[in-house]
């Protein structure tokens, strides 16, 4: 042992408080504004991501409330067509691109490193960068809306309506460029998750011991990587059509209007599963914890996740059954859309089986999961109905479909997400959410959701199309619309109640301790909230439910440096410790690069030269970001 090594103690040479404090210093975020802006701690970035996504949920929810107020009675004039078209575009775009996908990724950014037992996410600076890019993209959209130049072409932005001829001005460009922002950030997070899961798992966490939420995020991240480029290409082509006069989508010049729909839905259908699969991961965790037994059919559930992932790329045409594609081809997509119900059904059966054999504890978290099963199955079954070509031609683009996908997205993803918030809030904040308010929250949300969305099925069958800003009294849709509106107001209130619960519990909530639910996965093996280094000693995993199988404490892997950021890189399949790898320190470069990227993206709405000059500036900032340090690499 030489003098140099003494300056660099390893975690087996220290113990207790001293070890903990020195690690916390090494992994901590510097104080002050600069520290906050340059942090690369996945927990801080994840928290920001979660809060930002919920702010966007609130904005998108408000726009839905205004729309419902407009539709409450026939012939209403609360908002005109211009504002209404912006509102439903903002609602859909914000919910899909700024809330649903980011919030799932946000939870993954926070939880995956904890669940796999590592000290930070892979590529933490890229993670910080992705958050800033996401934030700037969201701001672009909402500032534009405040300035009354919000996009008004729908979240799907079909050409030719969104093309240069029928959408003059910059509204459609803002939509298209917002896509670029959010896709860049989503792709970055997907890469981080995949690398974290495959290469940074705690020793002993073989592939068949990975918690199901982590499996779900792994599959989701691959979906993101394969699906999102399609919409980025589409939106880039749209910007080219609009800005430099190409004719990709202009049939008069040899372009093709339907090409847009193929590209958009090749992304758009996997998108649904990008939102839904993480939610199923949350459900698996919550069900197992509150049934107090390991989840039934682990292997089946993993295979179901993978099967859904693959199948989700073979369904996109079922959004296009009314476009007159060849019938035989269309019927193939009926079959594939039906087929995806099999792995999804399997998941439901496995969860019910888990509950059957367990001793359920009815926490708010579990109630949301039960609410999820009841409502999501409705959405899934109405999905079987819309998968049929002939039936879809009757319900497509009507309120029936609006009902269907809200049952899938709210019932299938938001309910589990809320269950997840009740479940992981103590881990993130150190305090439990109030169960008393929580129960009220659940019942209000569950009942009002069904009041708001179930009647929409009937409205659709009665002929009410989507995206209409008003309807005539003679149509006889008034009563049901009024019920829907009242239900949606109550549903919005349930979120206000949720917010109150969060604020109240942050101050007054019961102190949680490391493992308030007696759960089995690794995130509960550390304190709540976790220290900057996540785990003072890296745990070693010997089973699928480590905290249940070793209640006396987990064995630890030692040998990492105490005053340098180091983590264990392990092998892909068996999670054998392989290398000690340095993890990046905090840095302001990601923020600078994200700022320059944002400016380049926004400027390229107005001039194509912004891509050239912006590319040079961003390139320079990337050089600063990646400039190698003079420090010697550890062996």
């Amino acid at each position, binding site marked *: 042992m030489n003098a140099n090594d003494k300056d660099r103690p390893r975690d087996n040479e220290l113990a207790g408080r001293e070890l903990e404090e020195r690690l916390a210093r090494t992994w901590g975020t510097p104080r002050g504004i600069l520290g906050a802006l340059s942090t690369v701690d996945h927990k801080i970035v994840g928290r920001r991501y979660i809060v930002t996504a919920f702010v966007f949920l609130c904005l998108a929810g408000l726009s839905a409330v205004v729309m419902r107020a407009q539709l409450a009675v026939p012939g209403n004039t609360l908002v005109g067509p211009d504002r209404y078209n912006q509102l439903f575009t903002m609602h859909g775009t914000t919910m899909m691109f700024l809330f649903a996908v980011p919030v799932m990724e946000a939870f993954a950014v926070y939880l995956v490193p904890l669940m796999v037992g590592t000290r930070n996410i892979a590529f933490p600076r890229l993670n910080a960068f992705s958050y800033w890019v996401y934030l700037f993209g969201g701001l672009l959209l909402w500032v534009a809306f405040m300035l009354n130049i919000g996009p008004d072409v729908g979240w799907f932005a079909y050409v030719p309506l969104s093309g240069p001829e029928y959408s003059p001005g910059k509204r459609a460009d803002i939509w298209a460029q917002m896509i670029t922002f959010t896709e860049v950030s989503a792709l970055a997070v997907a890469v981080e998750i995949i690398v974290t899961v495959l290469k940074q798992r705690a020793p002993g966490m073989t592939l068949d011991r990975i918690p199901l939420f982590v499996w779900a995020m792994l599959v989701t991240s691959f979906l993101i990587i394969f699906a999102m480029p399609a919409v980025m290409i589409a939106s880039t082509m749209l910007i080219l059509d609009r800005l430099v006069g190409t004719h990709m989508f202009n049939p008069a010049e040899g372009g093709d209007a339907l090409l847009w729909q193929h590209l958009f839905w090749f992304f758009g259908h996997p998108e649904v599963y990008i939102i839904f699969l993480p939610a199923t991961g949350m459900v698996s965790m919550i069900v197992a914890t509150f049934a107090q037994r390991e989840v039934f059919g682990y292997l089946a559930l993993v295979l179901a996740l993978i099967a859904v992932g693959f199948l989700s790329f073979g369904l996109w045409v079922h959004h296009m059954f009314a476009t007159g594609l060849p019938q035989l081809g269309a019927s193939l997509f009926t079959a594939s859309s039906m087929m995806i119900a099999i792995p999804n059904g399997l998941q439901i059966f496995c969860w019910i089986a888990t509950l059957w054999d367990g001793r359920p504890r009815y926490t708010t978290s579990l109630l949301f999961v039960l609410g999820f099963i009841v409502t999501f199955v409705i959405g899934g079954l109405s999905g079987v*109905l819309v998968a049929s070509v002939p039936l879809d031609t009757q319900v497509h683009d009507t309120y029936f479909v609006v009902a269907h996908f809200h049952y899938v997205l709210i019932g299938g993803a938001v309910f589990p997400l809320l269950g997840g918030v009740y479940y992981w809030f103590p881990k993130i904040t150190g305090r439990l959410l109030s169960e008393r308010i929580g129960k009220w929250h659940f019942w209000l949300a569950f009942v009002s959701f069904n009041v708001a969305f179930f009647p929409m099925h009937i409205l659709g069958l009665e002929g009410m*199309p989507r995206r209409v800003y008003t309807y005539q009294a003679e149509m006889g849709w008034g009563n049901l619309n009024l019920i829907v509106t009242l239900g949606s107001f109550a549903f919005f209130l349930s979120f206000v109640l949720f917010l109150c619960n969060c604020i109240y519990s942050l101050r007054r909530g019961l102190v949680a301790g490391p493992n308030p639910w007696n759960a089995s996965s690794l995130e509960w093996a550390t304190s709540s909230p976790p220290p900057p280094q996540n785990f003072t000693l890296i745990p070693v995993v010997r089973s699928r439910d480590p905290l249940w199988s070793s209640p006396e404490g987990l064995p630890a892997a030692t040998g990492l440096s105490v005053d340098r950021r180091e983590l264990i890189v392990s092998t892909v399949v068996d999670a054998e410790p392989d290398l000690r790898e340095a993890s990046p320190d905090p840095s302001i470069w990601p923020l600078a690069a994200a700022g320059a990227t944002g400016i380049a993206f926004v400027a390229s709405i107005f001039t194509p030269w912004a891509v050239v000059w912006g590319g040079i500036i961003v390139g320079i900032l990337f050089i600063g970001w990646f400039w190698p340090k003079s420090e010697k690499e550890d062996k």
Partner: protein
Amino acid sequence: MRRRLLATGVLFVFAAASGGCRGAQSALNPHGPEARELAWLFWFFLAILAAVWFAVVAALLFALIRRRFPVREHSMTRIVGALVGATAIILLVLTGLSYRTQSQLYGQEVTAPVTIHLTGHQWWWEIEYESSNPSQTFTTANEIHVPLNRQIRLKLTSSDVIHSFWVPTVFGKMDLIPGVKNEIRFTVDKPGVLRGQCAEFCGFQHAHMSLLLIAEDPATFAKWRNSQLRSRLPPASSEGEKIFLGKPCATCHTIRGTPAGGRFGPDLTHFGSRKTIAAGTLLLTRGAIAGWIVDPQSTKPGANMPAVDLTPQETLALTDYLEGLR
């Protein structure tokens, strides 16, 4: 026959439960064999899917309320396996039924149909009746008349953005896409004034782009068709027509028999014979016509029809003239 009885029974229960969903634009109020097939398929799917939902919820409830009723892991695996198998079988049956209906609907042979070209515009429908004899073709707007019990062949395209034709009482949707020629065939066997509405978001006034489909007996249809074929009858007073031709109206609208030949807006040759104006936005009355001419933007904000500067006398004369175009 049993099938129909079953469907009627379920329909009755559903209608009673939902407070009735019959209407001029209801998918469950079929007026022809194709729509009836679709409605039947819907009820069949609904029955199966509802049964599955009740079974799942029952299983869930039983899992929660049962008191120590253990199922061994091994038998549970078998049960779950069997359920997945049952799911697959149900889905297979539904897929087969769906395919059967699909081939019936889209695989129809062409049997001396009435062929109609429908072109979507922001925000109205151009309707052209095709005939092998050019003198037997004519153009109208927003109101399709069809004879009962004869195949109707609709050829669909668009002049601007994507629209979607949807008259739920006779057939499912089919999009009108620029650069694409789509086609559907259907028959109407019950008389009625049926309503349809654009089902693909097409911009500002997507909400006010509806049309009427009037199904009538062949004799009435033939009469209507003959009246639509001729040019406009000379008006009682020429004042209104003079205003129409002298103001910007004529640059967008056609009135056959006059020099007005614009193609940008709907053909108005037999405007007064229609039931609605502005693509189903207003019922055709004198007041509505006058209001529409003077201030179209307050009825249908964003519509391509500009307000035309007219004195009150001119407005009255023009209204009289348009109303008289039967």
